[in-house]
């Protein structure tokens, strides 16, 4: 592996300072499951790797009446081991459980998954569906970005040089709501999504009408996509097969998939429709019958 220096600061301010003073590019290290492979391949050639796992704010995992705070370095296994989070933010836990195998889940963080900004990232559609916001620290202070605006292209995002993702903030789960994430892969596990869908559905008190919904798509565009119109079109409707099929068609309309070894455009567009419908059905089930 190409030579680099290593530092493990214990505060956000120190991490930001290190990332900005490094003469070549500095690179934050969380679980390393993407970064260390990329260092080996020479895709990133930082002078300095800044291990952010010793910073308390990046290890926060706090569920309260104000919502969820998820530190950017918290590994997937800590997320799905928390029964409260599984109940309140089911889509996030669905994602955390299927990223890599157990060895990867013990290291890989949702924050890192977002910053790696892969179009098929398994946690990003869930973050978008759940309305998460990214809290970013940099030399000019902190700023917040809704997750649907975070990724700007494959491997690209809104982080400027020297900025670091500190945490993801989720609003409280709405009453009578359910969320779910599902992907299509040809295997049972350990694979990259061909298409993936995350969604949140909020029902009214009767459980018969949709109050609001958020649908996000993965692996069918250069970034994970928030299906804005498919989502808003569900408000006020009864969650019948016809309604959910309409939402699926609206979601298919924004998909711009590519042909590759994992699937053709036509196949991906088709699977987008199927998955959106199934994920919405599961959200409705979860909203009506909380675990």
């Amino acid at each position, binding site marked *: 592996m190409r*030579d680099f220096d290593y530092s493990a600061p214990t505060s956000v301010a120190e991490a930001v300072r290190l990332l900005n003073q490094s003469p070549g590019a500095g690179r934050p290290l969380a679980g390393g499951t993407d970064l*260390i492979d990329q260092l080996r391949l020479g895709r990133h050639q930082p002078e300095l790797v800044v*291990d952010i796992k010793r910073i308390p704010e990046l290890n926060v995992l706090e569920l309260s009446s104000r919502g969820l705070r998820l530190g950017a370095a918290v590994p997937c296994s800590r997320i799905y081991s928390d029964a409260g989070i599984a109940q309140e933010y089911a889509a996030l836990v669905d994602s955390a459980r299927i990223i890599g195998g*157990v*060895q*990867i889940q013990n290291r890989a963080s949702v924050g890192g998954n977002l910053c790696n900004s892969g179009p098929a990232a398994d946690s990003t559609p869930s973050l978008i569906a759940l309305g998460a916001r990214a809290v970013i620290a940099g030399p000019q202070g902190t700023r917040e970005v809704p997750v649907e605006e975070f990724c700007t292209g494959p491997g690209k995002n809104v982080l400027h040089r020297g900025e670091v993702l500190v945490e993801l903030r989720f609003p409280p789960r709405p009453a009578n709501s359910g969320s779910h994430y599902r992907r299509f892969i040809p295997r049972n596990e350990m694979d990259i999504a061909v298409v993936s869908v995350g969604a949140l559905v909020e029902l009214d008190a009767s459980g018969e009408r949709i109050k609001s919904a958020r649908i996000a798509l993965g692996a069918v565009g250069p970034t994970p996509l928030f299906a804005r119109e498919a989502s808003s079109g569900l408000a006020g409707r009864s969650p019948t097969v016809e309604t959910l099929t309409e939402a699926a068609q609206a979601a298919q309309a924004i998909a711009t998939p590519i042909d590759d070894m994992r699937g053709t455009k036509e196949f991906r567009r088709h699977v987008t429709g199927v998955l959106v419908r199934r994920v919405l059905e599961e959200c409705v089930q979860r909203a009506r019958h909380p675990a």
Partner: protein
Amino acid sequence: MAKKRVVSTTINGKSIELLCEPRQTLLEVLRDNLDLTGTKEGCSNGNCGACTVLMNGRPVVSCLVLAMEAEGASLETIEGVAQGGDLDPIQQAFLENAALQCGICTPGFIMSTKALLTENPNPTEQEARFYLAGNLCRCTGYDKIIRAVLDSAQRRQAALAAERQHS
């Protein structure tokens, strides 16, 4: 070249200090600096699980950990599984069920199995298969491996029951 640094860590119960380069992975340091060659290098990109070790009790792939990150951690490798001259029940079950062919994946499977049985002492076949999804066997001898894992669970349960009777 970046300066070599001292890392204090615990490996198989022994506190040690290591001198390593920031760019060295934990896998490299285990094998090349410490001569703990029971941990195998397979793909070196986190897919195969051959280099699985336990870090603070949890399985990780040591090819995707920098040695520097082991500062203050407790590590367990295949060399620490047998107690004295006695094989661990997991190792015994792998032997008796002929759960290995070329053997390169075996240390990784045993480390993952150890973590599985600590978390879930009595897994179903499906739970075992999902937990071990991050360990690949290129000889494709999965059935015997899974049989050995389920057999290990029974052996451990029996050993625990026997211990309880004696105490």
